[in-house]
């Protein structure tokens, strides 16, 4: 395809209004965002979600009686909220993972999470492949906040393992939980240790890329913000009034007040800005373009070359997939048949040719034989003739001899008479 040439316009066409149309349409449609929070219990996940979206998605947790307290496996809990701000509607889904890493043996505690992520991709794939796909509900996880306990040393083995399992399927944003337990030096040291661990284990986290349309100043600011990854956050459920009479979200201690929205105290505002205000759409795009495409390619490749290792459970009957599969198989079969036909045909042709040449050879051979025979006959004829001639000639010869002898004898008889006459014949007789 030839590359499009840019042209200057002579007047005002009006397609500069396109972004507005898109904007109006998407505002009317509303936006969707799915966020997953992963981490051991007691790290403040629910509190942070409440603080991020300034709503109380999770009311005070109710603690069951001691016998029922310990969860057995990781569960997946989704809650959905519809919020409206400035005329823009957002449908927010939060996926929580209670029970993660809580029991003694956490060997497979990330499996329910992986299965859930895959199931969302599967559902979207099926919805996309349907005949009528007007209302696709997008439940794919667009961002995963991974909560790291503020130990001060580095990543724990369970964190490393879980992130390794998730980084190819979701955008991971690592977050240091309950950061009010770290002094500024400890916090910096811990962040460096965590980033070191992440790099040494080759874990790919979401790196908040520079967005198009940003000028150099914004890019520089973006870069500075990226340096504080992983974000050290503090969340708070309640609004408190500090000494100056200011209302803010924070935590009140005997020694001071931690303000959640104060950039000096924690990285909460940075996280919120980068997650919601600047990079929300990019998160969705990356999920759609990279993670979902990877999943899709993998799935379809498995369908085309069916392998026994295909273990993904599918909840909906994959009618379309099956149909395509069958179609494809039929096509393969037809191709095979055609090829066989062609092959047979060629074989026949060859055979034919061979036969022809054989016949040809035979004919020529016959011809030659015939000609040879003819020649032979001719020769025979000639020989006979010759023989005949020879006998004739011999016969003649004899006759002549006889005649000669007869003449001689006659002459002898006459001879004496003719001695003289005949004497004349030979001088020296």
């Amino acid at each position: 395809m030839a590359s499009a040439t840019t042209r200057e316009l002579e007047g005002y066409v009006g397609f500069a209004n396109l972004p507005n149309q898109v904007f109006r349409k998407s505002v009317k449609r509303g936006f969707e965002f799915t966020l997953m929070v992963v981490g051991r219990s007691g790290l403040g996940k629910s509190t942070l979600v409440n603080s991020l979206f300034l709503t109380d998605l999770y009311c005070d947790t109710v603690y069951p009686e001691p016998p029922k307290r310990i969860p057995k496996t990781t569960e997946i809990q989704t809650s959905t909220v519809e919020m409206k701000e400035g005329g823009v509607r957002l449908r927010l889904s939060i996926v929580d993972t209670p029970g993660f890493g809580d029991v003694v043996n956490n060997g497979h505690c990330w499996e329910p999470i992986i299965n859930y992520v895959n199931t969302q991709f599967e559902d979207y794939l099926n919805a996309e492949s349907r005949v009528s796909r007007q209302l696709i509900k997008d439940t794919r996880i667009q961002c995963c906040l991974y909560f790291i306990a503020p130990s001060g040393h580095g990543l724990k083995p369970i964190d490393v393992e879980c992130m390794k399992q998730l980084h190819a399927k979701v955008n991971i944003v690592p977050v240091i939980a309950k950061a009010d337990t770290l002094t500024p030096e400890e916090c910096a040291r811990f962040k460096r240790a965590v980033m070191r661990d992440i790099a040494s284990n080759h874990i790919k986290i979401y790196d908040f890329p520079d967005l198009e349309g940003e000028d150099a100043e914004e890019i520089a600011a973006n870069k500075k913000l990226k340096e504080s990854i992983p974000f050290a956050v503090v969340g708070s459920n309640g609004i408190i009034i500090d000494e100056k009479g200011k209302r803010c979200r924070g935590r009140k201690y005997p020694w001071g007040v931690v303000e959640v929205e104060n950039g000096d105290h924690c990285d909460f505002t940075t996280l919120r800005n980068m997650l919601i205000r600047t990079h929300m759409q990019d998160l969705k795009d990356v999920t759609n373009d990279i993670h979902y495409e990877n999943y899709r390619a993998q799935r379809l490749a498995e369908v085309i070359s069916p392998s026994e290792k295909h273990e993904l459970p599918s909840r909906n009957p994959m009618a379309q997939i099956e149909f395509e599969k069958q179609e494809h198989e039929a096509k393969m079969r037809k191709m095979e048949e055609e090829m066989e036909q062609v092959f047979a045909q060629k074989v026949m042709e060859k055979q034919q040719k061979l036969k022809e040449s054989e016949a040809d050879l035979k004919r020529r051979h016959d011809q030659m034989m015939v000609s040879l025979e003819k020649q032979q006959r001719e020769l025979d004829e000639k020989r006979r003739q010759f023989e005949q001639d020879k006998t004739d000639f011999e016969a003649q010869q004899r006759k002549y001899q006889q005649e000669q002898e007869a003449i001689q004898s006659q002459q002898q008889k006459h001879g004496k008479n003719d001695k003289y006459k005949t004497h004349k014949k030979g001088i020296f007789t």
Partner: protein
Amino acid sequence: MLTQTQVAVLTRVFQKADGDNQGYVPPSVVVDLVTQVFGSAALSAGELEHVERRSASKASKAGLSFVDFTEVVNDLMGSTTRWGTLQTNLDGHVGFDSIQEQVRRKSLKRGFEFNLMVVGESGLGKSTLVNTLFKSTVSRASCTQVEHPIPKTVEVNSVSHVIEEEGVRLKLTITDTPGFGDQINNDRCWLPVLDHVNDQFERYLKEEVSVVRKKRIPDTRVHACLYFIAPTGHSLKQLDIEFMKRLDQCVNIIPVIAKADTLTLEERDAFKARICEDIQFHGMNVYPSSIVPEDDDDAEINSKIESLLPFAVVGSEKEHKRGNKSVLGRQTKWGFIEVENKAHCEFPNLRDMLIKTHMQDLIETTDKVHYENFRHTRLQRQQMGESNI
């Protein structure tokens, strides 16, 4: 044999109870009589029960005779030194009150031994807390050279220090358990710890039972175990419960909420309440509730401590200048957390209990309760011929 004065006291009490002068007293009254003789604070409830049973068993149809009464009292006299009305009065100053000075001098010369074990996941501030407790770098992590990453299995490492204060020398051994609770699969990560504790008991027993034994048996038994609970704010984790259930019979467990500067006061109280519920529900024996208080003073102190359990602590080795003095604490952007301030955290309470008031008691409980349990099971097993010492 009872002295004349003692007999006189007993006869008086007996006759008062024996109104119609039969020479017999109903057994149920014996407890009252005994309390009158010895004083109400002298005998514990268990001993009084014992008295009741004995008198009931000795009594005939008519009741308890004076001779039997004196026998019962005689038994009691052997088990306590508080004789109340049976005490003999002194006419002057004898001077045996200097015996405490003699004991003190002897123990000063000998020095004391204290073995502390710290257990908990990495990153909970165990080393910092121990250093803060003893105001010097005594923890294993700070002393040993190698800074190695989280080990794959649980190791048990000890370091020993001798610290001195006002002429009193203390041999302090800190046992650390790196790798505890850090793996993905933490099944049976308490086994190395359990083995270590039992090994120490074994060693002591061997020394005790040997034919030629040292004058003073080196005491490496673990006297106290500080168990660090992560400040989740919810309740005990399954690993915590498993560990405590298994080790509360062998060692004094003192649960401690680590890094408590992440909990507000309300959260702290709620968290403590839930932990106590869990502890009660699973029937775990945490110090000091397992010991039987000797008298009311101890009981009062113990109940005060119990109401604060588990202690929410914050540790720090750095000193900062506040005003004109140096204070141990953590400096953050929103405030300064003073480690020694009771309003901020409960570190002073823990330190007082561990060092100032209950150190001797911890050692004694280890010796008299946990070690006895161990010894009992071991010797029983030996008698049944399973193993030989």
